[in-house]
């Protein structure tokens, strides 16, 4: 009897009906629609190729890159092993510096906390720094339901928001859009929600950036409340950090009266010095830059300087459940750099929307199913050829391929636990294993495979197999199969070598 560790029972996963961790359809179906969109494939392909090359060149110039990766992995593993005490230490430090810490078990609690805090200020709009955590919990939708407008200020997030669209990449949310499409969106939408774009707007990147700058400037200057995520939180000092490229984050983190930060509980580092490792790993892996343009750090509140009210919302939303699985927990090392997306041959062709979650690509395929429980994302662990490019690119050395294999096992166990009869696939796998584990049965199977040669005499086959029955017809729609040979290797060996080994 096989024993398999299924995590501690009773640890809640991310709840249904809120946030953006579950797709509406299985990955293969969603992927098919992306593949049928040549514009999207061109946009994503061009963008990932560009970022890939930049990353490779700036990573290649760091002589101790592998040691840095090992250090990053070890630091994160240490954080995960000591998470409770470090979170308490962070809370003590933030509180001592004048901030307020809130603990949110899941997306619903986090949304309720932030909504209440914003309402408490009397504001009916907030500016936002790009944040995966708030996308994960669907904060903008929750605020909107409470009559509060949330304005995204990151250029790509703005494009997504104005386009009534969903982000498709961790770093470049609008990677699936090109310049011409962005110009159209700006001209059509900006005037509806604030300062309109100049009707003579071109699709030059500088012109598009200027239009966004003018539109956002009025938002920054009017906002009394900002909402951010966090790249890092230093437990020993209570310091929060956001790294970015555009300066919109710096505006949001310094201008408003009230700052609310929503942070996944795994975003901790133990000490200030540990940032040394991550501030090298992250920009090079993420944007392919040696250093990101803006690194903002703040510790509680400082009288007369910056926001005078600071709230930190610590978000679980399935992270503790992820932590409970020894073979899956390393996914929580992720620093959201997106290097794995940019090197993934599957992501490159499908784009991010196919993954149905705010976390797309390889990291999404291992993180989303763990946050929601595999039953709610059963197709994601299979959205990979296990080619291993992601593992090589990951700055904190998450062994994504091995984790995918582990999660596939969880999916098949989950299916077995919830049905009385095995799925056709499970039945096939079981009978194949039964045949293969017995030499006599295996030899017999090899001999009977010769009957497959009959498929080669069908009209038009020309000695190759052109059509197989379902579900294997999904192979022969685009590929032939060679005819089984007259003699297996086993039989050849026996004939030539007389059966001895």
């Amino acid at each position: 009897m096989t024993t398999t560790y299924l995590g501690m029972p009773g640890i809640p996963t991310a709840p249904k009906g809120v946030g953006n961790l579950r797709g509406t359809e299985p990955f293969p179906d969603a992927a098919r629609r992306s593949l049928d969109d040549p514009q999207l494939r061109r946009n994503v392909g061009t963008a990932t190729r560009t970022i890939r090359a930049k990353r490779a060149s700036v990573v290649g110039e760091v002589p101790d890159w592998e040691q840095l990766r090992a250090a990053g992995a070890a630091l994160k593993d240490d954080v995960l092993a000591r998470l409770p005490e470090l979170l308490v230490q962070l809370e003590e430090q933030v509180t001592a510096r004048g901030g307020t810490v809130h603990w949110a078990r899941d997306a619903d609690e986090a949304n309720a906390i932030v909504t209440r805090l914003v309402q408490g200020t009397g504001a009916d709009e907030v500016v936002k720094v790009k944040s995966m955590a708030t996308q994960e919990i669907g904060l903008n939708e929750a605020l909107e339901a409470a009559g509060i407008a949330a304005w995204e200020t990151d250029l790509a997030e703005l494009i997504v928001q104005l386009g009534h669209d969903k982000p498709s990449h961790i770093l470049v949310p609008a990677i699936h859009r090109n310049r011409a499409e962005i110009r159209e969106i700006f001209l059509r939408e900006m005037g509806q929600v604030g300062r309109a774009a100049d009707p003579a707007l071109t699709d030059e990147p500088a012109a598009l950036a200027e239009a966004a700058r003018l539109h956002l400037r009025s938002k920054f200057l009017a906002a009394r409340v900002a909402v951010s995520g966090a790249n890092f939180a230093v437990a020993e000092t209570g310091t929060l950090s956001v790294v970015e490229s555009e300066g919109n984050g710096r505006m949001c983190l310094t201008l408003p009266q009230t700052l609310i930060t929503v942070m996944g509980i795994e975003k901790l580092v133990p000490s200030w010095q540990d940032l040394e490792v991550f501030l090298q790993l992250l920009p090079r892996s993420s944007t392919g830059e040696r250093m990101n343009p803006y690194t903002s750090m703040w510790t509680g509140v400082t009288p007369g300087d910056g926001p005078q009210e600071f709230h930190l919302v610590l978000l679980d939303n399935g992270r503790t459940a992820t932590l409970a699985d020894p073979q899956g927990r390393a996914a929580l090392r992720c620093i959201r750099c997106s290097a794995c997306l940019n090197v993934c041959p599957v992501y490159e062709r499908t784009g991010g929307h196919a993954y149905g979650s705010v976390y797309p690509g390889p990291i999404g395929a291992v993180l989303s199913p763990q946050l929601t429980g595999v039953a709610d994302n059963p197709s994601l662990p299979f959205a990979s050829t296990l080619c291993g490019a992601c593992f090589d690119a990951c700055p904190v050395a998450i062994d994504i391929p091995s984790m995918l294999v582990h999660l596939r096992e969880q999916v098949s166990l989950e299916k077995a636990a919830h049905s009385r009869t095995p799925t056709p696939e499970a039945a096939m796998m079981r009978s194949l294993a039964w045949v293969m584990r017995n030499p006599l049965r295996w030899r017999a199977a090899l001999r009977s495979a010769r009957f497959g040669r009959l498929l080669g005499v069908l009209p038009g086959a020309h000695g190759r197999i052109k059509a197989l029955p379902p579900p294997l017809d999904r192979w022969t729609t685009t590929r032939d199969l060679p005819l089984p040979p007259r003699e297996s290797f086993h039989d050849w060996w026996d004939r030539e070598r007389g059966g001895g080994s």
Partner: protein
Amino acid sequence: MRIGLLVTCLADGLFPQVGKATVQLLERLGHEVGFPREQSCCGQMHTNTGYGRFALPLVRGYVDAFEGYDAVVAPSGSCVGSVRHQHRQIALDAGDTALAEQAGEVASRTYELSELLVDVLGVTDVGAYYPHRVTYHPTCHSLRVLRVGDKPLQLLRAVAALDLVELPEAESCCGFGGTFAVKNADVSAAMLADKMRNVTSTRADVCSASDSSCLMHIGGGLGRLHTGVRTVHLAEILASTRADAA
């Protein structure tokens, strides 16, 4: 040294010429090759599809079949990858620590063909003759699980009369991915299309690799499009001599 051949289930049933070539090559180099007839499959397909628990008897079978050999060789990067990186874990997941230890031990003596030739036997020039224009696809598991690096290319460069041409975007996956090719057939086909475009751009007569499964995928696509490019396993090229070409 006594070398045990893991022929792999795919080569056994569909591509026996790959197994024969491996035997002929190693015997030509003066080694004794054994073929334990109770072998079947490394269990990779089960493990990678989420049925590692069914692969446990296959892991045990592998250990029983190959324990007595100085080295085990397979003409497949992905099967050796499974042996070296999954067998021990499958036994551990099943709570069989004794088997896990044995599996780890046999795995440490299991090599992909180019590793065995270059690292263990210390040869790059195996005396082969192959008068064709060849491009080589390095296969993901050889490259990123086993880290064979340029060993296959070292072997090919030493082959007489062989014209080796570089494959653009060589390190990109061909889209096979085992059951991925059927479960995500559309994405797989899109990846295959790009791989084939790169193969045909080299104007090679032959696309070679060290994995029958990837070659079956690439060859299946090239055949469907009537490109005229053949797929030939590295072992077959290295086993070829002037006598074969004549």
